[in-house]
C-alpha cells in the first residue's frame, strides 16, 4: 500500500445529453515522496482523476485512500490549471485564503505562511497584486497558497500549460524544487511528455477516454529538469512514452500506406 491508493476507480458523468464514461478501472499507487506523473491525451479524464484524488469529486465506483483511510479535508493540496489567484487580493492575502476558509488563521499558521514566502522569494512582493507579478511568481504564490495548509500530497493539474515555453521550463523546475524541498508527494498531470520526464520519478500513461492506465514507466534519469533534458537516455524515454501515447498512430500520415488509385 502506498501513501495514496486508487482502487478500481471508475467515473461516469451524467448530463442531459447522455453519459460519459471518463475513467475506467483505475488502480494506482503513489508512494511517499514520489513525484508521480500522469500523461494522456486531452479530454481523456485526467482532470477528473485528480478531482477524485482531491476529494472534490466522488467516483461512481471504487475507493481513494490516503494512508489507508478515506481522504480528509486539507490533507490534499490542489494546484489548478492557471494559478487562479484572486486579482483583488494581495499576494499575502491570497496565500492566506486557505487558512481563512479553514478558520485556522492562528499565529503559528500565519508564521508558517510568512516563512514559506520568505524561503521562496515572495516576501518582498507580499503586498503586490497578482497582476503585477510575472507568470512564474504567480505560479509560485499559488503553490505556497496550497503549502500553507500543510498538505501531505500536492496534486498539480497542468499547472504550466498557460505559460510560454521558456518560462514554462524554469517555473516547472521551480515548483519541482519547492515540492522536493518540502518533502512532499506530488501527482502531476500533463499532456507534455518532456515535462513529465524532466520532473517525475514515475509516469503513468493513460489512454484516451475512458482513461485507463495503459502503462507505467520508471524514470531512471537523475538530476534536475535541465540535466535530465540533456541526458542521452531522455530521447529514448521520450520515444517510448510517445509510442505508448500516440493513439492515432495507425492514422498518422507517416504510417499510412499511400492508396493507389
Amino acid at each position: 500500500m502506498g501513501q495514496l491508493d486508487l482502487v478500481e476507480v471508475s467515473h461516469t458523468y451524467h448530463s442531459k445529453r447522455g453519459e460519459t464514461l471518463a475513467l475506467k478501472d483505475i488502480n494506482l499507487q503513489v508512494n511517499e515522496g514520489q513525484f508521480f506523473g500522469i500523461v494522456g491525451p486531452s479530454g481523456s479524464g485526467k482532470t477528473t482523476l485528480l478531482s477524485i484524488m482531491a476529494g472534490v469529486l466522488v467516483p461512481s465506483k471504487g475507493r481513494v485512500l490516503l494512508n489507508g483511510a478515506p481522504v480528509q479535508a486539507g490533507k490534499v493540496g490542489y494546484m489548478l490549471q492557471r494559478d487562479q489567484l484572486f486579482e483583488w487580493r494581495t499576494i499575502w492575502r491570497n496565500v492566506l485564503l486557505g487558512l481563512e476558509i479553514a478558520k485556522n488563521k492562528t499565529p503559528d499558521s500565519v508564521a508558517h505562511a510568512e516563512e514559506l514566502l520568505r524561503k521562496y522569494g515572495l516576501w518582498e512582493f507580499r503586498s503586490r497584486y497578482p497582476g503585477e507579478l510575472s507568470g512564474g511568481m504567480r505560479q509560485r504564490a499559488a503553490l505556497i497558497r496550497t503549502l500553507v495548509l500543510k498538505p501531505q500530497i500536492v496534486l498539480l493539474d497542468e499547472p504550466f500549460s498557460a505559460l510560454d515555453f521558456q518560462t514554462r521550463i524554469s517555473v516547472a523546475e521551480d515548483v519541482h524544487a519547492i515540492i522536493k524541498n518540502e518533502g512532499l508527494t506530488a501527482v502531476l498531470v500533463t499532456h507534455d511528455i518532456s515535462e513529465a520526464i524532466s520532473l517525475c520519478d514515475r509516469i503513468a500513461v493513460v489512454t484516451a477516454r475512458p482513461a485507463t492506465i495503459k502503462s507505467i514507466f520508471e524514470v531512471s534519469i537523475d538530476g534536475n529538469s535541465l540535466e535530465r533534458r540533456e541526458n542521452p537516455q531522455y530521447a529514448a524515454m521520450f520515444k517510448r512514452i510517445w509510442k505508448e501515447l500516440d493513439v492515432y498512430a495507425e492514422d498518422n500520415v507517416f504510417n499510412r500506406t499511400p492508396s493507389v488509385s
Partner: protein
Amino acid sequence: MQKITYSIEHRRFLNVQKRRTVVIRLLQAAVLVAFLGLWQILADAEVIDSFIASSPAKIWQTFADLCRGDLWRHVLTTLYETVLSFVLSFAIGTTIAVLLWFSDTVRRVAEPYLVVINALPKIALGPIIIIWVGAGIKAIVAMAILISVVITTINTLTGFISVSAEKMLLMRTLHANKWQTLWKLVFPANLPTVMACLKISVGMSWVGTIMGEYLVSKAGLGYLIVYGGQVFNLSLVMCATVVLCVLAALMYVLVALLEKVVNRCIGL
C-alpha cells in the same frame, strides 16, 4: 516613481492629441451655444411661437423666479425619492440575487417569473400600487423600486453565476462552504459588475421617480413638469426638465466616480 522623458516625436504627438481634445471640447460648447442662440433669435423674430416653444431667456427667467420660490423643495423631494429608491432597489435586488444564487432549484423556479416581470411595463402596476400603499411618496418610491429592482436582480445574478468555474473549483478544493464562497469569491469578483450595474440602476431610479411623480405627487420635478403641461406653461416644463438633466448627470458622475474608486481599491 521615475519621471519618464519622452522623445521629441512623442511629445509632439501628445501635443497634437491635447490640442484635438481642446478643439473637441470647444466644438461641444459651440453646439450648445449655437443651439440656444438660434432658438432665442428665432423666438425673438417670432419665427417660432414662444408660447409653445418657449425660449432660453424665458426659461432662465422661470428658473430665476423658481429659485426665489420653492425650487429647492421640489428638487429635494425628487432627490430624496430617487436616492431612496436607488438604495432600496440595490439592497433588495442584491438580496434576491443572493437568495437565487444559493439555491439552483429556487432559481429555476423563479426564472420564468423574473422574465415576465422584467418584460412587464411597470407603469401598468401604477393603480395597484396607489391602492396598496396610498398616493404619496410611498407610491412613488414603490414605483421606482419596481422599475429598477428587476434589472438589478437579473444583472447581479448573471454576474454571480458567471464567476469562472475554475475559481469555484479552487474554493471547492479548499473546502469552502457556500457562505465563504459568496464572501470571499463571488462578491469581490463581482464588485466591478455591481458598480457597472449601479450606473444603469441610477438611470432607472430617475425614470421610476419621475414616472411615479407623474402618477401621484404634490411636489417634485416630475410634478412641476406635469403641472406646467396642464397650465400650458412650457417655460416651466422645460426649466424643470433642464434641472432634471443636470441632477441626473451629476448623480451619474458621482456613481461613476465611486466605481473608479472601488475599482482602484480592489486593484483593477
